[in-house]
């Protein structure tokens, strides 16, 4: 009986105390007709040793390749200390810190996290996390609609260079609330949206504008100009950023004259392993003005009966467990443990360590792109700078190239034909700081072979 501690004699004592003859009798309020016999499709119990062997075998089948895929999830170095501390029972197996006095560890950590994220994005405040980057964008759009009281249109401009899965997710989540997401085309030259593309909407009632920086292709958007354009147009600005990139580039709080109104994105590059896509976390920061529109938990610093500093969940009247149908969101459980890891990660890496990761990721990717562009028929799809991803055009069908490189133990990148067929045979590659010069050369040679 895995995980059930009862001995036969304890069971008897307990049944006696309750006044029933059998455990079965405790289910006597369930209509007989509904009771089931056996869960026949569930396999028999495995002991821990067996399940360990099973899982080790499965893990082994998926391992071993050198990864050059980015596209929203990035392989970065994570100090060993991070998850060793994060998985300590007191963090790992605690509930949401509703009983503040017995949860000061988690609460103080979140307060520190909020400080770090607000600083990184140059925004006023941060919440305690949302699910992931894509759903955070959806929440940001909902929040902008609530926050922009002057706008009635519920229309939001979303450039085509925003991560396609973010756009899908945002659409799926906001569509039932009569919000319209309008795609702003990207330039096939720069891979970013020209200001002129926004100008098409000048004077229209646009509730908010989304800007991803760097965008899905790794290219940079003209954030200052677009932000000012939006603000002049009465729209709120939602910045979607890779938080690691913010160590190098202008943070959303400083875009244009007044900065973005909401910043969000995926915290994964700050301490979460790739891990098949999750758990990551969505971060969200905003201006002080919008704080009461923010979804999710927020921790505040306060004092106790004796005047001593302490931390507690605050502004709970925004949340579903208090405000129910009038809440800012239905979110309840968030991604606390990943935030715990991320906070420890940032503290251990420090500003220099994080900046170094960003710089090396940028340099490695650019060097690799330069190198492979020497191969006949391989070229950059876009002009201009990019962060740590580069879209390449290949002289052969991308799927075939990916397959051939996989045979050589290399995951070559994201196949852009899936979502951007207009770009032709395009591949999005990413080489973070985890890749050595040898790795880059190995990639280049494998690509040469695959194209030969």
């Amino acid at each position, binding site marked *: 009986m895995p995980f059930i501690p*009862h001995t036969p004699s304890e069971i008897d004592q307990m049944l006696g105390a309750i006044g029933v003859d059998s455990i079965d009798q405790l289910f006597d309020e369930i209509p007989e007709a509904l009771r089931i016999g056996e869960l026949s499709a569930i396999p028999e119990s495995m002991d821990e040793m067996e*399940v360990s062997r099973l899982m080790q075998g499965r893990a082994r089948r998926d391992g071993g390749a050198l990864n050059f895929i980015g596209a929203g999830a990035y392989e970065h170095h994570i100090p060993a200390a991070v998850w060793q501390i994060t998985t300590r029972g007191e963090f790992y197996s605690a509930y949401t810190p509703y009983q503040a006095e017995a949860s000061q560890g988690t609460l103080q950590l979140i307060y520190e996290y909020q400080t770090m994220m607000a600083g990184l994005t140059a925004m006023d405040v941060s919440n305690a996390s949302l699910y992931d980057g894509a759903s955070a964008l959806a929440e940001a759009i909902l929040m902008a609609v609530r926050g922009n009281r002057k706008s009635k249109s519920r229309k939001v401009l979303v450039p085509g260079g925003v991560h396609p899965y973010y756009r899908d997710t945002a659409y799926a989540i906001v569509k039932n609330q009569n919000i319209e997401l309008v795609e702003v085309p990207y330039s096939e030259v720069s891979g970013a949206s020209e200001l002129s593309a926004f100008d098409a909407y000048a004077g229209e009632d646009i509730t908010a504008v989304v800007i991803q920086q760097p965008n899905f292709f790794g290219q940079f958007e003209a*954030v200052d100009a677009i932000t000012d354009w939006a603000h002049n147009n009465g729209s709120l600005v939602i910045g979607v950023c890779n938080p690691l990139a913010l160590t190098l580039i202008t943070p959303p709080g400083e875009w244009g004259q007044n900065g973005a109104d909401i910043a969000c994105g995926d915290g994964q590059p700050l301490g979460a392993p790739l891990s*098949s896509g999750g758990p990551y976390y969505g971060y969200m920061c905003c201006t002080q003005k919008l704080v009461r529109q923010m979804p999710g938990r927020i921790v*505040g610093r306060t004092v106790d009966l004796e005047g001593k500093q302490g931390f507690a969940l605050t502004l709970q009247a925004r949340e579903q467990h208090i405000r129910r149908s009038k809440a800012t969101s239905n979110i309840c459980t968030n991604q606390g443990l990943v935030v715990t890891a991320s906070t420890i990660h940032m503290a251990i890496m420090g500003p220099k360590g994080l900046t170094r990761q960003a710089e090396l990721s940028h340099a490695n990717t650019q060097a690799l792109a330069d190198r492979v562009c020497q191969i006949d028929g391989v070229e950059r799809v876009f002009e201009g700078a990019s962060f740590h991803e580069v879209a390449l055009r290949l002289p052969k069908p991308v799927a075939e190239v990916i397959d051939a490189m996989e045979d050589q133990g290399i995951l070559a990148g994201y196949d852009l034909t899936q979502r951007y067929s207009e770009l032709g045979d395009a591949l999005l590659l990413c080489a973070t700081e985890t890749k050595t010069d040898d790795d880059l050369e190995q990639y280049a040679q494998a690509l040469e072979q695959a194209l030969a």
Partner: protein
Amino acid sequence: MLIFEHAVEGRPSGAQYINGSQRDTQAENRIPEALRRRSSLNSIPEVSELQAVRHYTRLSQLNFSIDTQFYPLGSCTMKYNPRACNSLAMLPEFLGRHPLAPERHSQGYLETMYELQEMLKEVTGMRGVSLTPMAGAQGEFAGVAMIRAYHDARGDDERCEIICPDAAHGTNPATAIMCGYKVVEIPTKKDGDVDFEALKEVVGPKTAGIMLTNPSTCGVFERRIKEIAELVHDAGGLLYYDGANLNAILGKVRPGDMGFDVIHMNLHKTFSTPHGGGGPGAGAIGCSERLLPYMPIPVVGKEADSYRYLDQQDLPETIGRLSTFAGNAGVLLRAYIYMRMLGRVGMHRVAEFATLNANYLMVELEKRGFELAFPERRASHEFIVTLKREAKDYQMSAKAVAKRLLDKNYHAPTIYFPLHIPECLLIEPTETEAKEDLDGFVAAMVEILEEAQRDPDLVTQAPYTQPVRQLDDVKAARQLDLTYSA
């Protein structure tokens, strides 16, 4: 002390400063000057690795947790989180797998997810499962959005109401709103069941669906569930099952058999993935035949002996994508491992012993003079005590008891939920606690009662043994202090 108070500008970042290639990354920075960050990064503290390790290790010790305390938080299912689930889900290959890795390089993971889907179908009696929702509330969103997609697909677009009992978890009404519905609340009767007559009044052509959890958040099994299902179905509505917690029914009764059309499951409750101080969770959904086309993508499919993600092409009527990739994979792995360890027989036993523990604790507390909210009923995996009388007589409010329990090294039960029961404690011991711990909790409750009778202040001023005394929530909300500045 905050981590920032340990920071000193210029502190070297040590072994985490990556040497990297020989390239001069400064010189090779191709980011245009105009786009570069100019403001400082001083919100990221400069501390040594030892300082960070020490700071966060110490912070962790300030928490209560399942690994250190009995934690009978109703509706939250604080059961043992097996350590094997953690170490196996964190095998390096699982951590290193990119979500967009080619499927032929992902068969180990995909097979696991496929089997998880199959097991969840079996325990819920549903026809399809999607694992992508990242918590219960997102599962609810998916489920209600599927209900909406179903009605929309049929052109049945008058239906604009979702019915919820007053005892429903806050996420239920909040979700209905997110899906563009109006919420219609129905009362709970004295015996804990939904007021069937009141329900009849509100069910009609505007009814898109009803959200129920059974056993309800009152901790009792809704006995007329079949009639409710018939009523709602006959009116053209669908039934949503809030399966945040299956601990009371696992292997005993299945939502699908009760007539529900869609369910979300908190794998972080029933299937024992850790709560992590607030998350992450996983809110897989299951659905009946008619809702299959609308499941959120991706879903794992099997063809011959290989597995692949089913996407928009395969499920053209899907409500869409709810996460960047495919949900909280690491959480799903933990749940899978746990389920494999439980196995067929273990599943049944979860419900049996969760129910045994809850009923035992309930009768023991009642014997000591505590008043039950539903004294005539069996407890499910949880039950409710009301301190209405104690609060009046000795200021022994639910909150005061919660705080005082901390001093006795027990985490508090859920308080003031459900909302319609005054001064309530919602108590859920779970199946993984031993009799001695239940007995210890009863003894602590009796002690507190005696203390309150003797000296109410002792109880109302608690806690005394925690890192801080009672915190000023009003100040926290009024004088917002959400970030540190030096």
